[in-house]
């Protein structure tokens, strides 16, 4: 199992390293990720939200529904933990 896991992870790693050859250079200001959506946020945050911190402006203002969905995920996880860890205690009580 150990050697199989090692071989599989090395093969996957080799494929991923081969995939980085087509990536833009690290820290390139003209990479596609920093040319399309984010300039709009950087330019208009001050006039539209009056918040100096762009990250919090995007988190709570532009993408507020995203944060609401995150809160739903946390709530679901908390309920799952409570239900998982509580059922066992009830069993113990019933058995005496």
């Amino acid at each position, binding site marked *: 199992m150990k050697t199989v896991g090692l071989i599989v992870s090395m093969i996957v790693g080799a494929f991923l390293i081969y995939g980085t050859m087509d990536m833009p250079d690290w*820290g390139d200001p003209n990479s596609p990720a920093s040319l399309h959506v984010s300039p709009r946020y950087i330019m208009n945050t001050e006039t539209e939200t009056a918040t100096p*911190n762009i*990250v919090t402006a995007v988190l709570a203002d532009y993408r507020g529904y995203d944060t609401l969905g995150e809160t739903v995920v946390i709530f679901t996880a908390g309920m799952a933990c409570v239900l998982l860890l509580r059922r066992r205690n009830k069993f113990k009580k019933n058995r005496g």
Partner: protein
Amino acid sequence: MIITFDIIILLFVVMCAVAAITVKDLLSAVMILGAYSFFMCLMWTQLGAVDVAFTEASVGAGIGTILFIAAVMKTTRRTRD
């Protein structure tokens, strides 16, 4: 970004990751994972992502380590690998 600082932090991060999965005591592994999270927090600070860094320092390194320690204390510290 300072390139030597970058390389040193990346080296520490990889060392902590390898140590966390090879050490034979679960409580030690969890502690090393906490150190890994704080090194990751330094890494993000020097990449310019300060909001991500302090979220990681409070949520990832704090609450995550507490959850792990609670789980290890409720179960067992011993492991075979």
